[in-house]
């Protein structure tokens, strides 16, 4: 759905995006993750033909960008760096104008607007102008605009900005549902939790470079350690001497590959088990391992 080769963008002397090779497959929920100022938004803008690359190639929905971006955009919906609407007009009127600008079919316009508003939870919104909208409502309206043309590909830049926890959950469920119906979702975010909860594939960008791109499942591999919570930590340590890497009260970190075998061993030695689980890497571990400090920090934190 999205392929880039050696995508590069230079603003004067600043290298904002440095030779990025993205590969987003059909049906992915792709998380484009990176600290602030790492080049995420510039990359998204290049995918949409808003910013012209300095070097490299882009293909979106099989069309060359920016040359043939006009052929790709009708099948694509996007939210770039916050929503935007004409402040003195109502939400519906805004959507109607945007749809007319895209030469959307007038016959189905009203139905598509209502459908989009319903999906994002604005079905009952009144005629108030969008300048009176809350940040969350604006975000939802922006999403509705992206859904107007029933896109095959959604490109969303920080879509849950300004939403409360309930709203974030609703949007996540909406995106999963759209994805199940066949929409590929490309989500750029600096929020680990958002990506971890939603995405199936992850690309991590740092200081303009794509430092990692893989399935989330593969990234969150077992670490070869098992976490044990037991009321008998003393006997557990005695039993597993040498394999215990860490002890924090009743909680132990044990170097072991096989949870079932370990459980058997503990039970046989009459060590009571309150909790036993294989340790997995969190996305945070992965990100911290591959990225440096964000480009919005200058100097170390003391």
């Amino acid at each position, binding site marked *: 759905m999205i392929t880039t080769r050696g995508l590069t963008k230079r603003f004067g002397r600043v290298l904002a995006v440095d030779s990025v090779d993205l590969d987003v497959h059909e049906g992915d929920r792709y998380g484009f993750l990176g600290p602030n100022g790492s080049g995420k938004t510039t990359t998204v*803008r290049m995918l949409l033909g808003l910013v012209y690359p300095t070097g490299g190639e882009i293909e979106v929905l099989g069309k060359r960008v920016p040359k043939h*971006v006009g052929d790709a955009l009708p099948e694509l919906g996007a939210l770039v*760096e916050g929503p*935007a609407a*004409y402040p*003195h007009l109502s939400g519906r009127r805004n959507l109607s*104008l*945007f749809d007319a600008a*895209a030469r959307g079919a007038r016959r189905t316009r009203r139905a598509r607007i209502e459908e989009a508003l319903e999906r994002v939870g604005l079905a009952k919104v009144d005629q108030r102008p969008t300048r009176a909208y809350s940040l969350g409502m604006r975000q939802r309206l922006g999403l509705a605009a992206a859904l107007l043309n029933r896109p095959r590909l959604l490109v969303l830049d920080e879509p849950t900005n300004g939403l409360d926890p309930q709203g974030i959950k609703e949007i996540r469920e909406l995106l999963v549902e759209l994805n199940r119906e066949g929409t590929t979702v490309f989500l750029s975010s600096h929020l680990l939790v958002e990506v971890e909860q939603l995405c199936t594939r992850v690309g991590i960008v740092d200081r303009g470079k794509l430092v990692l791109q893989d399935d989330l499942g593969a990234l969150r591999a077992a670490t070869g350690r098992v976490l044990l919570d037991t009321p008998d930590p003393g006997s557990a340590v005695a039993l597993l001497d040498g394999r215990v890497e860490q002890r924090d009260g009743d909680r132990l970190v044990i170097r072991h590959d096989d949870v079932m075998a370990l459980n058997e061993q503990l039970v046989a030695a009459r060590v009571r088990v309150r909790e036993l689980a294989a340790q997995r890497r969190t996305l945070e571990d992965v990100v911290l391992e591959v990225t440096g400090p964000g480009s919005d920090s200058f100097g170390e934190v003391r």
Partner: protein
Amino acid sequence: MIGVELRKLVLRPRTWVSMLLLCLLPAIVAVFLATADFAPPPGQGGAFLSAVIGDGTLYPAAALALVLPLFLPIAVAVAAGDAVAGDAATGTLRYLLIRPVGRTRLLTAKLVSVAVYVTLAIVVVVLTSLAIGVVLFGTGSAPGAAGGTPAAAVSLSGVQLSSSSLVLRLLGAVLYVVLSMVGFAAITLFLSTVTESAIGAALGGLAVLITSTVLETLDAAAPVKPFLPTHYWLSWLDFFRDPVLWRNIDHGLLLQAGYILVFFGAAWANFATKDVKN
């Protein structure tokens, strides 16, 4: 896209407020003239004003002369300056472009929308001032000659004009003023693609206007005068001479066409190759 821009124009309160203000100036002047009950000497307070007292149907031309030097260009500068920069500032520009709206199509729609706005504004000014003129000054029967032939306006050359000829001349003048304003709008539209600040672009356009007006009064600037954007602006008055004095009108039309071509071209060249980062 032109339809969308026109809908935006109509739905925008600013459009109607600015037109109201444009109509207000001639209305205020007319009220003062009517209550003072003596004609200003020729040459004071704008063209036609002395003639208007005798014939209200001439008032639209007087109103044009009142709003043209400053009021109308300010309204045009605000509208054209906002055209691209305004959408850039609210962020709607990027959403229009990814709908998708081609950049050339968008820019053309913007210029057309400004042209429609100018035309509408002038037509509204003409119609309201016609109504005001007729109500306050009557329709041209010479004072004291009750029952004299009505609607026989006097041209700037002192010849009587029939009312059908007056309508044609007024139409010509309106079209000429519209084109002059669109030429000015093209300059401001170009500035609007350069900056993200609508007010900056509008002020830039007005700076061009003021510079041009100042140079116009400067003898040392004689070589460039025929090319100044405001040089032939007042030539619409020539429609009210008898016979119509076409020389300056022709030059004016050619010059404005040149400004539109050059600055719309520059706006296109800049906008089509620009990174949209806001």
